[in-house]
């Protein structure tokens, strides 16, 4: 049943908590409140729950429990991966070069920029094609001097494109260059088998797959050097200090189990609706373009640019009409910059400012999609008229 009120089409921004996840978390806010580091019974029970969660998380990723670090979310995972692996690589082998794609989330891009601007690293951006995809051959050409770290996003938050990670990983593996991938958007839509992906570091964040906000994980392949960036007690094997957020970690693992076990069904259902959106919008709305790859993309993700439209104005009109979407150029302070990701695809600012992202999720219905598709063309025209005035 479509819910009354606004139609939520912004699941890439965040997702509602799955009630089954909430249930799994609840005891750890009250009776099972112990600190996993404590010696007594309270602590032991919390530790048992935490380590059980780590084991389950490792299994879902086809990894070992000691390769899992729990964090406060996708952004922290990206920060720890970039800064921790880069600093360790410099310390151990003198490598100071960073190689990232130009379509990374800011959590990666700005961390890399800080390493370059203030901490003595050099930063190079890989080329991408018109779909924002990294060509593994271009990676192979850029491994001299040997980078400290390569970071390539898996499923793109803004344009949905999924990068050919296992091919990129094969090249890195051959040269012994650590490869990090930001998989924060991918948890509910792609199997995250780190052996198949071949990555050395992988970031995820729970609230993108119906878990709570404020918790994430970083996979670090055994033997990958990593300096902690948050220091203190010896939590997480000394790689991430701070009392573990047991309830949220359990919630994340539960959510990840559900997301991965229900993945095929969700992907086929959402993919069908997503394809309908892509096909209809490109036909119904003049001067529209898909952003990202038409097929090799996250199943719930459709993204567009409309020429001569202010993305902020379009979002406002959509919100008023009862549709919650987002835009790569949008910002709550009304201060739009054309998205760096869209510019990297070769779009001009005139197109890049008019971006729209429509992302689907468990509660999305065909009926909702139909009413969205019926409303959008007129709203785009309205937004265009405002710019033309």
């Amino acid at each position, binding site marked *: 049943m479509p819910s009354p009120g606004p139609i939520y089409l912004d699941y890439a921004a965040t997702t509602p908590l799955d009630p089954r996840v909430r249930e799994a978390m609840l005891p750890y806010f009250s009776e099972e409140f112990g600190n996993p580091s404590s010696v007594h019974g309270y602590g032991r029970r919390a530790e048992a729950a935490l380590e059980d969660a780590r084991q389950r998380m490792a299994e879902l990723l086809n990894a070992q429990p000691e390769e899992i670090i729990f964090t406060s979310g996708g952004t922290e995972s990206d920060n720890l991966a970039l800064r921790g692996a880069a600093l360790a690589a410099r310390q151990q082998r003198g490598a100071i070069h960073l190689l990232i794609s130009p379509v990374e989330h800011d959590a990666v891009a700005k961390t890399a920029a800080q390493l370059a601007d203030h901490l003595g690293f050099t930063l190079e951006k890989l080329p991408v094609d018109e779909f924002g995809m990294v060509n593994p051959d271009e990676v192979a050409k850029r491994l001299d001097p040997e980078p400290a770290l390569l970071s390539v996003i898996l499923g793109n938050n803004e344009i949905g494109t999924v990068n050919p990670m296992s091919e990129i990983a094969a090249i890195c593996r051959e040269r012994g260059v650590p490869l990090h991938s930001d998989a924060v958007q991918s948890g509910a839509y792609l199997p995250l088998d780190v052996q198949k992906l071949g990555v050395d570091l992988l970031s995820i964040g729970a609230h993108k797959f119906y878990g709570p906000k404020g918790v994430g994980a970083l996979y670090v392949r055994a033997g990958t050097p990593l300096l902690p960036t948050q220091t203190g007690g010896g939590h997480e094997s000394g790689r991430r200090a701070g009392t573990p957020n047991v309830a949220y970690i359990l919630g994340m693992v539960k959510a990840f189990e559900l997301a991965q076990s229900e993945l095929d069904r969700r992907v086929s259902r959402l993919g069908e609706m997503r394809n309908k959106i892509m096909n209809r919008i490109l036909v119904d709305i003049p001067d529209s373009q898909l952003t990202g790859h038409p097929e090799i993309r996250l199943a719930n993700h459709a993204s567009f640019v409309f020429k001569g439209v202010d993305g902020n104005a379009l979002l406002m009109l959509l919100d008023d009409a009862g549709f919650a979407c987002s835009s790569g150029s949008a910002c709550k302070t*009304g201060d739009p910059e054309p998205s760096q990701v869209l510019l990297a695809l070769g779009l001009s600012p005139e197109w890049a400012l008019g971006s729209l992202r429509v992302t689907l999720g468990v509660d999305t219905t065909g009926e909702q999609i139909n009413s969205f598709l019926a409303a959008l063309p007129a709203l785009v025209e309205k937004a265009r008229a405002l710019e033309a005035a």
Partner: protein
Amino acid sequence: MTKVVVAMSGGVDSSVAAALLQRQGYEVIGMMLRLWSEPGREASNRCCAPAAMNIARRVAGRLGIPFYAVNAQESFRNIVVQNFLDGYARGQTPNPCLACNRQIRWEFLLARALALGADFMATGHYVRIVRSPDGPVRLFEAVDTHKDQSYVLHVLDQGKLQHALFPLGNLTKSEVRQIAADLKLPAATSKESQDLCFLAGQDYRDFLQRYQPHQAQPGPIVDRTGKQLGEHSGLVNYTIGQRKGLGIAAAEALYVLGKDQARNTLVVGFADELGSCELLTESVNWLVGFAPAEPLDAEVKIRYSAKKAAARVTPLLDGSAHVQFKEPARDITPGQAAVFYVDGEVLGGGLIAKMTKKLARVESELSPSDVIPVA
């Protein structure tokens, strides 16, 4: 339900305006303009600093109304700031709030409000509006004459006024503060300021130096007869009526009487030369949409903060107006607006193009006419 967009600023006035309209049964939507600031000075912009936007957003949250930031930076820079720079380049003293109200708030923002299906747009201005079934929408001074802002809204035409709501026009500032307190509305604690928002606290002369350094060329200071008395540091640094900072020793205090932009010359004289009895406007905006057929006896305000003065206003064929004051008016400043009131109603107004000299002292060798050239 009748839908109204409230132009919010995070200040107590627009917040209370939104709350009052909601109580009156309107469907209220908040919008806030993001205006241009010099790069690096955004935090100090008086109209739309990020902190003010946070407050506006909290007010909207408290009222449970939608809130949208609307980016007008490019238009504001191209229209309002350019207007300001061009005005000074012509030797005038422009009032950017006029251009902002005409072209940004009541055009750019109004267009977005109407696109959302709003019937009205409201602001927290202290001004009253009167509607009648067949007649034009009429604009009046606020009940709180100290806070009255009708001067800057004389730029509105019927097309804009028909969509305008001003919920604070019948309230005093202290009543508005009380309503905000009763409703526990978040409000900025910073003191009110009359500074131009985009100057972000700096002196307008520093701003002009940066954007139009060629306007700051030194030149002669002369008296009415053309006799050189000293040197000025750039015409932009002076306003009409200014006494301090001329750097000339004289038995009697000297005042800036006018600027001769073509000759880069500052004209000074004594206090009794300062007043002018007449002025000419540029094109007048008559709020009903057309000029009156006959000259009218009105009260005329020549600056935002000036007292109204009795005058006869004669509409001229080219759309401008001639204003003849009963008493000489000091500080008539080209670039500011002259706004015409009758019984508290704003009938129209236009930018001051030039003033005429005080008739009692016609002895000029500087120019053959009785007009100090300003353009």
